[in-house]
């Protein structure tokens, strides 16, 4: 934001980019309603029919009429796309046929129920992703949506109605829609429609649905829909304001930080923050802090947290998992690093015990300048349990539980034995130290849980075996109670501390391992010399790091995927190609073809995709962890860079070969030119000497010598033309462009042809004040010379010639006009071909290369050459050259010293 009311340049730039992207994209209109039955599909169809009448190519992709007669009637006469039949388990399900729609490429397509989940085995998991692809292909889409399907309102609606739907649409997608049309029906009318059976209800869900359509619910939903639409309208106004620079522009650096807690309800905080961020029109971050304590959470709980992180990502957040000792400190560090001024917490993220300070208050102490916003708890809704597989492998990482706890008992027994040996020689106070040492040792080896157990066991053992009365838990002296308490406390504390240290050490080890793996991969990739080597290195590294089967596809020259030699089960070339074309990951854990067991990542380099990395991890869960994912993406990026580097090496090598062969060709042509011309020169010279020799030759011999000379000169000319053509053919026409005056070119061509022209009348008419034209003077003179030569060759010696130059629009046209026999219309094009001559059987010498050379030279200048008839007889050859912007003559009339004497 700037003080003078100008929009932030970054914001404007983003908007320009958005406009650009939108120009090629199709437009999306969403018919948005508070619940089923308000008439969204009906409204969509009415609008579509109107467009069709205006001549737009409208196709119904999917339209659900739910047996409603009025709606079905509207559908009549609209072209419909046949559904795709997908076998699913033992049934065949009908699904929207995306590929057919892309193939058909209509102007507008109707795709009902935007939040629909596609049948497993479709390309995308959700219908809105199909729509996204349609829009990307430049097809306009009309679709429909109910308010409860919006991701951020999903739990709110669940709270109101008690029914949670699982088909949701990310808000970002909704907000990107070009238009949202609110279809609104008052609650009473809707209930009446329901009563008259105009609203579709599936039989099995009838009871639940009846419950849903209570007046209170409907009114609440209607309010939500109205408010959400109003939010969007507000956004449009904002967008308009940016565009028109009306008033002040909102802040862009005031982003929110959402804390994802480990408990249930974190989703609520995420959704709440998403709503808030949208209302404030700011970007937001979502962070989960993993502390040692949270690392020990059970698998399902971790799974849920990761799901929440992904939800935040879907809702448009920058999501991250941060590892740290304390939640508050990690949050503050993150907020400072990313310049975030507001932290959003859930109320449940408080303290475990009443006397512990809440997270909010710790944050307040650590960072007094950061705003804290606490969100209320979610209304508990009936929810299906998360469908996540239980996973035993996610507990504390070191070894299996029973053995660890058994080792605690062994450790305690060993401590006790040692103490028993030492007891006769030392005070009891010192024996306590031995027991404490035992706890520290166990904490170090086995972690926190065993350490707690060891603390208790050691206290018990000390009491039982050493504190009088021995072999009894009874205590004679009260002061030992203090010893026990201190011992327990010290044991627990050291256990906690050591476990923390262990955790830190493990995190450091992991981090180190990750950077070492990256470093090694970078080193290995940079030393590769061929694409195959780079692919081998990348496959090995990724397979080792991610314990996965890995395949890397490279691209051919047409950017098509090259199928690898070996066959891997489940791999799909089509998906790989899609990934490469869209630069978007697909398969496992993504939005596209999530059912696949393979994950396809595009190898994105600076310029474009260089291939696709496909991997099937043995533990798919690993890829859900953001760090692992980013590690994988880093590997992919490195591989892509390596492939790009190798590609350019290949290009450079190709260029070297080409330069070398060009050099060879040039020297060959030069040698040929020299070897052919020298004997001809000698021949010409010899005849001239013959003609001038003494005693003088007889008339007949003179004539012979002249004839030999003339033939030799003609041969020289032919050789010149053949070599010119060879140069042009080899693509070696390199223009030496300069700003030339056409008058000068013509003057010099005419001067060169003066012998040929002899006394023939020649008129030169050049339009006055013509601009300079950028061309290769030597070659253009060659064109003029060839045209003049032709004109002289094919017309009677005394027939006049004309050279006319004038300007036409943005080009200069030069005409060489003769009054000879003319060119037959059938040959108008053919005469510009090689070895074609206007009069095949004529005795006029030549090989028919002159015009072909002219055409090649003129074409190289970006001009045209053609022939027109001359009235009443004859031919006019015309060539044109594009006119550019000649450089200025500024400074050309400045006379610099030393000045010559000036004219008066």
């Amino acid at each position, binding site marked *: 934001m700037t003080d003078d009311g100008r929009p932030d340049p970054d914001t404007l730039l983003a908007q320009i980019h958005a406009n650009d992207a939108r120009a090629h994209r199709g437009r999306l209109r969403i018919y948005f309603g508070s619940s089923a039955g308000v008439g969204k599909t009906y409204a969509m169809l009415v609008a579509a029919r109107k467009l069709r009448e205006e001549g737009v190519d409208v196709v119904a992709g999917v339209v659900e009429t739910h047996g409603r007669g009025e709606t079905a009637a509207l559908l009549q006469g609209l072209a419909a796309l046949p559904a795709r039949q997908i076998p699913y388990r033992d049934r065949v399900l009908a699904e929207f046929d995306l590929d057919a729609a892309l193939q058909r490429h209509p102007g507008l397509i109707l795709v009902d129920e935007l939040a629909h989940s596609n049948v497993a085995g479709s390309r995308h998991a959700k219908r809105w992703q199909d729509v996204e692809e349609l829009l990307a292909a430049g097809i306009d889409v009309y679709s429909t949506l109910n308010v409860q399907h919006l991701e951020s309102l999903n739990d709110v609606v669940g709270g109101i109605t008690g029914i949670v739907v699982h088909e949701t649409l990310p808000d970002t997608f909704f907000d990107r829609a070009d238009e949202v049309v609110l279809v609104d029906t008052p609650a009473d009318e809707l209930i009446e429609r329901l009563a008259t059976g105009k609203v579709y209800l599936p039989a099995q869900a009838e009871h639940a649905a009846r419950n849903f359509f209570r007046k209170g619910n409907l009114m609440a939903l209607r309010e939500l829909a109205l408010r959400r639409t109003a939010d969007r309208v507000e956004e449009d106004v904002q967008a308009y304001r940016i565009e028109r620079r009306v008033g002040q522009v909102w802040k862009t650096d005031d982003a929110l930080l959402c804390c994802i807690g480990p408990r249930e309800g974190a989703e609520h905080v995420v959704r709440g923050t998403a709503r808030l961020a949208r209302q404030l029109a700011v970007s937001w971050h979502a962070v989960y802090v993993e502390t040692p304590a949270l690392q020990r959470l059970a698998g399902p709980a971790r799974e849920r947290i990761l799901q929440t992180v992904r939800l935040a990502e879907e809702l448009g957040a920058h999501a991250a998992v941060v590892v740290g000792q304390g939640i508050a400190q990690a949050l503050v560090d993150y907020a400072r690093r990313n310049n975030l001024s507001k932290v959003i917490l859930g109320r449940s993220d408080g303290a475990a015990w009443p006397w512990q300070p809440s997270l909010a208050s710790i944050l307040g102490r650590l960072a007094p300048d950061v705003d804290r916003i606490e969100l209320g708890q979610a209304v508990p809704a009936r929810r299906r349990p998360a469908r996540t597989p239980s996973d035993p492998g996610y507990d504390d990482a070191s070894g299996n539980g029973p053995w660890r706890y058994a080792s605690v008992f062994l450790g305690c027994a060993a401590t006790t034995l040692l103490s028993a040996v030492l007891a006769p020689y030392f005070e009891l106070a010192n024996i306590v130290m031995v027991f404490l040492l035992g706890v520290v040792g166990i904490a170090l080896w086995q972690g926190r849980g065993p350490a707690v157990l060891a603390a208790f066991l050691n206290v018990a053992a000390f009491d039982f075996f050493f504190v009088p009365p021995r072999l009894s838990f009874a205590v004679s002296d009260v002061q030992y109670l203090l010893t026990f308490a201190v011992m327990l406390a010290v044991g627990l504390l050291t256990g906690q501390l050591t476990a923390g240290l262990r955790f830190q050490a493990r995190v450091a080890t992991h981090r180190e391992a990750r950077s070492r793996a990256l470093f090694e991969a970078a080193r290995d990739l940079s030393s590769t010399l061929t694409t195959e080597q780079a692919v081998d290195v990348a496959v090995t590294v990724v397979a080792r790091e991610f314990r996965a089967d890995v395949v890397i596809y490279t691209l051919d020259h047409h950017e098509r995927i090259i199928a690898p030699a070996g066959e891997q089960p489940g791999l799909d070339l089509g998906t790989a190609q899609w990934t490469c074309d869209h630069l978007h990951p697909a398969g496992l854990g993504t939005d596209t073809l999530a059912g696949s067991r393979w994950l396809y990542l595009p190898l994105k380099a600076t310029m474009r995709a260089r291939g696709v990395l496909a991997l099937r991890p043995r533990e798919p869960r690993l890829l859900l962890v953001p760090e692992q994912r980013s590690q994988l993406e880093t590997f992919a990026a490195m591989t892509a860079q390596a492939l790009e580097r190798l590609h350019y090496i290949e290009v450079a090598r190709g260029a070297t070969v080409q330069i070398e062969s060009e050099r060879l060709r040039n020297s060959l042509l030069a040698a040929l030119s020299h070897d052919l011309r020298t004997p001809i*020169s000698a021949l010409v010279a010899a005849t001239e000497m013959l003609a001038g020799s003494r005693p003088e030759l007889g008339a007949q011999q003179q004539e012979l010598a002249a004839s030999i000379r003339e033939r030799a000169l003609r041969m020289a000319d032919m050789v010149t033309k053949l070599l010119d053509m060879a140069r042009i053919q080899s693509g070696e026409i390199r223009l030496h462009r*300069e700003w030339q005056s056409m008058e*000068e070119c*013509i*003057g010099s061509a*005419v*001067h060169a042809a003066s012998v040929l022209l002899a006394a023939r009348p020649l008129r030169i008419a050049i339009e006055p004040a013509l601009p300079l034209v950028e061309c290769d003077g*030597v070659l253009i003179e060659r064109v003029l010379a060839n045209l003049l030569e032709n004109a002289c060759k094919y017309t009677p010696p005394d027939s006049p010639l004309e050279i006319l130059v004038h300007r036409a629009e943005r080009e200069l046209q030069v005409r060489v006009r003769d009054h000879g026999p003319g060119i037959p219309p059938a040959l108008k094009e053919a005469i510009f071909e090689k070895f074609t001559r206007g009069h095949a059987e004529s005795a006029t010498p030549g090989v028919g290369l002159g015009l072909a050379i002219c055409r090649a030279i003129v074409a190289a200048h970006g001009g045209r050459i053609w022939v027109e008839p001359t009235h009443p007889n004859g031919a006019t050859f015309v060539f044109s050259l594009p006119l550019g912007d000649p450089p200025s003559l500024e400074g050309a009339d400045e006379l610099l010293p030393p000045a010559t004497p000036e*004219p008066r």
Partner: protein
Amino acid sequence: MTPMPVALVLEDEREIRRFVCAALEAEGWQVHEAATLREGLVQAATRRPDLVIADLGLPDGDGVDFIRELRTWSGAPVIVLSARTRENEKVAALDAGADDYITKPFGLAELLARTRASLRRLRAGKPTEDAVVRFGDIEVDSPARVVRKAGREVHLTPIEYRLLGVLIANAGRVLTHPFLLRAVWGPGHSENTHYLRVYMGNLRQKLEDDSARPRHLLTETGVGYRLLTDA
């Protein structure tokens, strides 16, 4: 009687060398031959020629190097023999100090016309600054700084006058674009060939009968310009 002028022919092709030598001898020259660059330099140093005719493609080096070497101690006119489509080569030779060029294959008449012109320039010596120069119906009166065509005064701009002055001082010689640009506009303008095109056009408009078919201010396409005073 003027002493016999001395010419050196440097050409590696025997037939052409023989032809050129014969032609020059018939014109009254004393001719020496050389077939290699090394031999050419020795001959030029010992014979002190009044004219050198040199081929550019020599078996042991580049003719341009020969001219550059020769120019360090001799002012004798040099005519270069070169193939067509080798404009760069011609410009290089002219910039190295050559006076003229003939494109192969060439005829007797053309060769002799060039050698005669060179000899005449040699005999006449450098045109003095204060002389009145006449060619065709054009008269350039340097002391009075007046240019007349068919007796009528022609007004030239200072740049046009300077350009004409440079051409007259080097009449008959081919002057390359870079040379003219340096001489008229000074260093730093050697790329602005369009200046030349425009000012040369202006000069032709003012001095030639038909600017499209000039008789004095000739274009040597791809190389430069030449003022022909004896046409």
